[in-house]
């Protein structure tokens, strides 16, 4: 799961309202006086997912400093699924093996 979603405790498909609710709840529990470090993390995480454009940027380009995000990774690794062709002889050998 992407880091900002983990911090806010929501799924990556969460809508605008869910994101905002989660953010408000988190900062209520982690105030700047009581847990300044956590508050900072929550604020930074929210900035990365606060609207649709930010979320799309995170998906496509990843966290700040990175060049590509999960979206590209999933597309590229899914790919066109061209597999290694092994040849008729190899298949027939496998078939023979399977019948033993």
């Amino acid at each position, binding site marked *: 799961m992407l880091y900002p979603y983990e911090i806010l405790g929501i799924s990556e498909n969460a809508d605008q309202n869910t994101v905002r609710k989660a953010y408000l709840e988190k900062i209520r529990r982690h105030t700047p006086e009581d847990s300044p470090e956590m508050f900072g993390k929550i604020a930074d995480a929210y900035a990365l997912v606060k609207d*649709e*454009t930010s979320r*799309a*940027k995170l*998906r*496509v*380009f990843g966290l700040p400093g990175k*060049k*590509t995000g999960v*979206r*590209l*990774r999933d*597309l*590229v*690794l899914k*790919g*066109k*699924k*061209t*597999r*290694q*062709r*092994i*040849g*008729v002889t*190899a*298949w*027939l050998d*496998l*078939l*023979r*093996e*399977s*019948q033993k």
Partner: protein
Amino acid sequence: MGSRKRKKRHYYRGAERRAPAGCTSSEIIRDLEAAIQKRRVRKAVGLAKLLRKSPGIEPVSAEITEIIVKAYELRLLQLLESGLKKEADSVFVALSQSHPEYRDYFSTDLLIRKDLETNSAHILPLYETVPEKARLIDDYIKTRLTQISDLAGYTHLPGERGLRKEAELILLAWEEVESTDQNRDVYKGMLKTVGRHSPLVNWRLFIQGLNAFYDGKDMEAKEIFERISRDSPIIDLAAALVEMIEGKEPCSHVGRQVAVKISKPSLYDELEEIDDLIAGKKYKKAEKRISDLLFQPIWKQKSGLQREIAGSILSKYLDLEILIPERFDSLPDRHFPLLQAEFAMGLDSCEQWDRVLYLYDDDLTPLEKALINNRLAELALKTNPFDELSFANIFNFFRSQAGIEQEKEERLMEASEYLQESADLYPLRETFSLWYEKTFEIRGARHAEKILESWHAAFPEDAEPLVKLVNSYRERKVYRKAIKAFRTLDGIAAGNPEVEAIRIYLYSDDAISYMCKGKPAKAEEQLAFITAGRDVFCSALAATLMWVNGQMKGGNFNPAKHESELLALEQPLSVYHVLQRLREIRLDGLPSIPQDIKQQWQDPDVYVNNLHILAQVSDPVWEIHETYFTLPDYCHNCFYRAKADSSILRRLMELFIKRDDDFDFPETPDILWQLSANGIKRNDSNLFFFLAYRGALIDSFMSEEVPLPKYIAQLLTDRGDECFGTAYWLAEKRGSLNDAAWVESLAEETVLENDVKELAALATEEKKQRLVEIEGAAYGKKSLKDEVTRMRRRSAKKTKRATRRAIDREQQELYEQLELI
């Protein structure tokens, strides 16, 4: 000595041996059945022979014949499985000849298999003529045939139609599917010929599914494989492929074997093979190998290794592109291997993102595509290669300059295409903002206005593009458009402070426009709408325009009253600035600046404060531009004597540095020198800033290569170093990392010999105080040049006095010597 017991020889070894006396045929039969059951071929055959020759079995019953044949069947199977096909056929032929009655007892399956594998004609040729046999043969082919190549090569069936033809087609189609050639003619022929009633239909389905599997059409492949009959021998292979599609771990031996073969590692061999293929000009095959290599799932989770490997593969692919460029123009899929390699290498380039858009046009959402286009634009706009100018001669300089401009223009054009695409897909404010900024920078306001208009069209409720548009029109003096745009802006953002400020400026623009047309009455109407507002400068602007307009209008205008109003504002520089601007637009009949106003700006406090007000004007028409703003004459040491807050002095220093960082105007270094001295003597929180710039000013002076006596040069160098060191020390003490970093970066631009941090280590409170006294001293701090001149004169006087003393002493000694004589 004991006798060796002779090993008992079993009676059934060797065909010639007869049964020992007392061994009945029933015992042989029993043993034979057991041997057959245990598949002990040699024993069974031996027993069968024995049984045949056994006198007790005459006449040979059907049951006995059956069991004898079973033994020989085992033998035939053994020979076939060992690949001894000729021998198997020979045994059968010999048996058939010696015992023709055995033929009817041999199983059909075995005979079919034997016929296929030995290309003999004992049962298969009956396929065409005997329906009963045909049915059995069909059944065998459906459920037990594993080597379709045998059927395809069986010469005793007609080749132009029927089973053999279908088998041949299947084999050829399979070869086609296994090749990277896009041609599928035979495959298509197979689909037409091998119908669903054919005994070879499962083979056809397997080839179909395999074709889809290789093409990555997983759902289609899975659906086809699931149609294969459960009793077909090919089902195991199909099931293994379905497991791969579903991403499951293979659960059978053949499944594992299939997975290994399809995702085969061994990169070294592969790269070598590719090199050989390229060297042998077998480019198509080389391309196929490269393409297959990139998709090896074994490299998942091994990002570092994958990156290196992708790099090696990418270089091969690029070799191929150079060798056969025409091939890659037509193949859309040529992009994908490159993209995978680029992705694995973590590239972030125009080419990569272009490829992403091309390959995944259907998968990406409009917003994602818009963001990628924005990224493409950013990459296209990155620093051009003309970073180093050639200063060898003027010709090269201007040529390089022209090259830079050309390059920027080309990059903007490329970026604009991406940004237009982005805006069309999914309008985003950041798209327009980037587009406007870069267009303004490279092509100027007029072109940038078009972008603002598009921005406004996409986001009609946004004030930002309208504000920029109004200001742009104003600057270009296109007042009608400015007013029209302002009316729209007023409709959506009235009351906004920025909008109110623009309103005032717009009225003043309008008034000036009327004044230029010789319509002071109209101008006066517009000026009546101007109120002071938040902008202090606006009061001076309005008052000055009214004064000028009043002079032009004449009538019952009271100049003295207006002049006293102007004086009361205490903004003589603002008045000067407004008049300068009006002079530049060639407004006729401009009055001269009143003497009282000129007198007013001789007060250093008024001068500096008013300059500060002007420095904060952010209107594009009225703000101070370095191109045209000139200071009126100011009094001696004005900038040193002013009592303004150090933050104002700092602001002014920043203004002058921004305005003239190359010191093209001769007064700039002097002004900065005075301001820095004034700031230093305050000894407050901004001290570090003034000391740092002090050091920079000294360095700048030294770099002018004015010949200086050695000791003065050393003195100045030490002073500069000390200023920087103390500045850094103070910034660090404040706890501001940004300020310390700023001092350090400023020091790096100088010829400072020592590291600023090392100098800071020597700083102390006492040194700082001493520095404040020296650098902030009140005596005649007009400029550094001035100070150096005084230093030279002082040094000359000292030298003269020292020389004088030396001469006097010499004379005295002479007198003493003379007295002695």
